[in-house]
């Protein structure tokens, strides 16, 4: 579904990514982890076509990203950015409707399909209750749900998320990640998510990429990537990795 080939990137003189290649299959939930400054956001910017790589290419749905217009990209891929600026006085419905932009042909009218998609998405995310409220008056978690709803209104095949749970409480973290997991499972969406919390990464993602020193340090199933040795090498911490049967997932405990 999405493939990067030998991506390198830099900001002026500083190289931040070197020869990064990987592939994400349709209906997969991939997590990108790594310490601060490892280049996760940069990699996501390149995969969304916001930043162009120094060398290498990104293939989206079998096509070279550079040959696609912004609109064509937006019809396939939706992005939930790390932090997004929220202007006042737009209602939740207005905002979700903006997700229909890449599919709208007419400049002024809204089709029946647009209305239906927006209604469905709002229902699916469970934000029906505040549909007509102003988005700037919602809490951080609720806003994030609205932004995800807007992304889903694009009817994307690929969903990109940059630390979507960074400023949320545990309840909303679980809710948002559960939602993404459900979308992957039920709708066959491909999700790529940058995330800091290793426990959540292990629990929700099917596959992980660990970035370190501009390169892919390791890549594979959570139990193969999140080993004590890798964590020591990359994060410089002593960590114990256990399997917790009650949540059916790995659990990482950092010792000193």
């Amino acid at each position, binding site marked *: 579904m999405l493939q990067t080939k030998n991506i390198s990137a830099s900001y002026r003189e500083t190289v931040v990514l070197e020869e990064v290649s990987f592939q994400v299959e349709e209906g997969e939930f991939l997590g990108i982890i790594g310490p601060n400054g490892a280049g996760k956001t940069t990699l996501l910017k390149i995969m969304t*076509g916001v930043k162009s790589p120094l060398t290498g290419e990104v293939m989206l749905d079998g096509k070279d990203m550079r040959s696609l*217009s912004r609109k064509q990209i*937006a019809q396939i891929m939706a992005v939930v950015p790390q932090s*997004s600026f*929220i202007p006042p*006085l737009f209602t939740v419905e207005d905002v979700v409707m903006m997700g229909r932009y890449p599919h709208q042909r007419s400049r002024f009218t809204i089709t029946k399909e647009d209305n239906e998609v927006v209604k469905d998405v709002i229902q699916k995310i469970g934000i029906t209750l505040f549909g007509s409220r102003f988005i700037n008056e919602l809490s951080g978690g609720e806003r994030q749900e609205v932004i995800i709803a807007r992304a889903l209104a694009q009817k994307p095949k690929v969903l990109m998320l940059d630390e979507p749970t960074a400023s949320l409480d545990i309840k909303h973290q679980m809710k948002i990640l559960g939602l993404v997991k459900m979308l992957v499972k039920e709708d066959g969406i491909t999700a790529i998510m940058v995330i800091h919390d290793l426990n959540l990464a292990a629990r929700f993602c099917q596959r992980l990429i660990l970035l370190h020193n501009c390169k892919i340090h390791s890549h594979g199933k959570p139990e193969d990537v999140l080993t004590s040795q890798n964590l020591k090498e990359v994060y410089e911490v002593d960590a114990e990795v256990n399997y917790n049967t009650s949540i059916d997932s790995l659990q990482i405990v950092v010792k000193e």
Partner: protein
Amino acid sequence: MKSKQSFILTILLVGLIISCILAIMIGPVFIHPAVVVKIWLHKLLGGLIQPDWTAIQETIVVDIRTPRVILSMLVGMGLAISGTAMQGLFRNPMAEPYVLGMSAGAACGASLAIVLGIGKIFGVFSIPAMAFIGATITIFVVYNIAKTDGKVPTETLLLSGIAVGFFLYAVVSFLKLIAPDAVLRNVVLWLMGSFAMAGWTDVKLVILPILCGIVIIYFLCRELNILQFGEETALHLGIEVETVKRILLVFSALITAVCVSVSGIIGFVGLVIPHIIRFIIGPGHHILLPASALAGGIFLILCDILAKTVSQPVELPIGIITAGIGAPYFVYLLRRRKKAISWW
């Protein structure tokens, strides 16, 4: 919500018509509103109405006051809508075409024409033509200074507009310094803006570019709404941000240059009107753009009535009126409703 919006638009439309009639009634010679309407209908419908007014009244209404009202309406609409577009594009309450150095460019072009007689090939249009050229060159220069790697970062654009503006005003000051006294007065008056000399030729000159510009900006209202969420979000949602930015800049610049070239520098319309309307109506550009245009038209027509009447028989430059009303109101907004200013 929808009905509130159409209600406000209707009110503004009615207000616009009333201000037009008021502006034609009021002047050194008072003309009864019924007569105004009758003369208009007579002209529009080609003589269906039996004339019961004097020839002088007809001349005043048709040849002197109507073009003046139409011109002030068009300029008010143009300045307000390009202000709305610039504020929306840059998500900055201070943004308006004037801040991008355009008024300075126009002032510089006009001063060159008045003081040094540059642009004689344009004949009677030498001042508006030079003002237009000055404004257009300025926005082009400002835009290219700000451009890096094919992108035009908002902050850089605003800063380069301010810098170029300062430079051009220095040129204007120099021209004022070397101008003979009689010419100096003309420069100063032009810089303060006026509709005193407005005629049908001016209306014909500006109506097409201003209306075209307004229509094209309105075509981008959906993009403007999405741009409120930032340029990166707009990219993710499928907008070619740099293209949209360029179109909005070019047409706002065109509108402003055309407005300034026939009326001189009229400040505060593009700044204050969009603010007030955004405050009343909210951020949706579908309604915000037309409402600002209507309000801008009303505002400038009313200001022009004041300009004509406050100090009869001498006319005040309208720029003094708009600044005299606009600046205190802006300060009031700043103090009372900080929310309106810290919009973004």
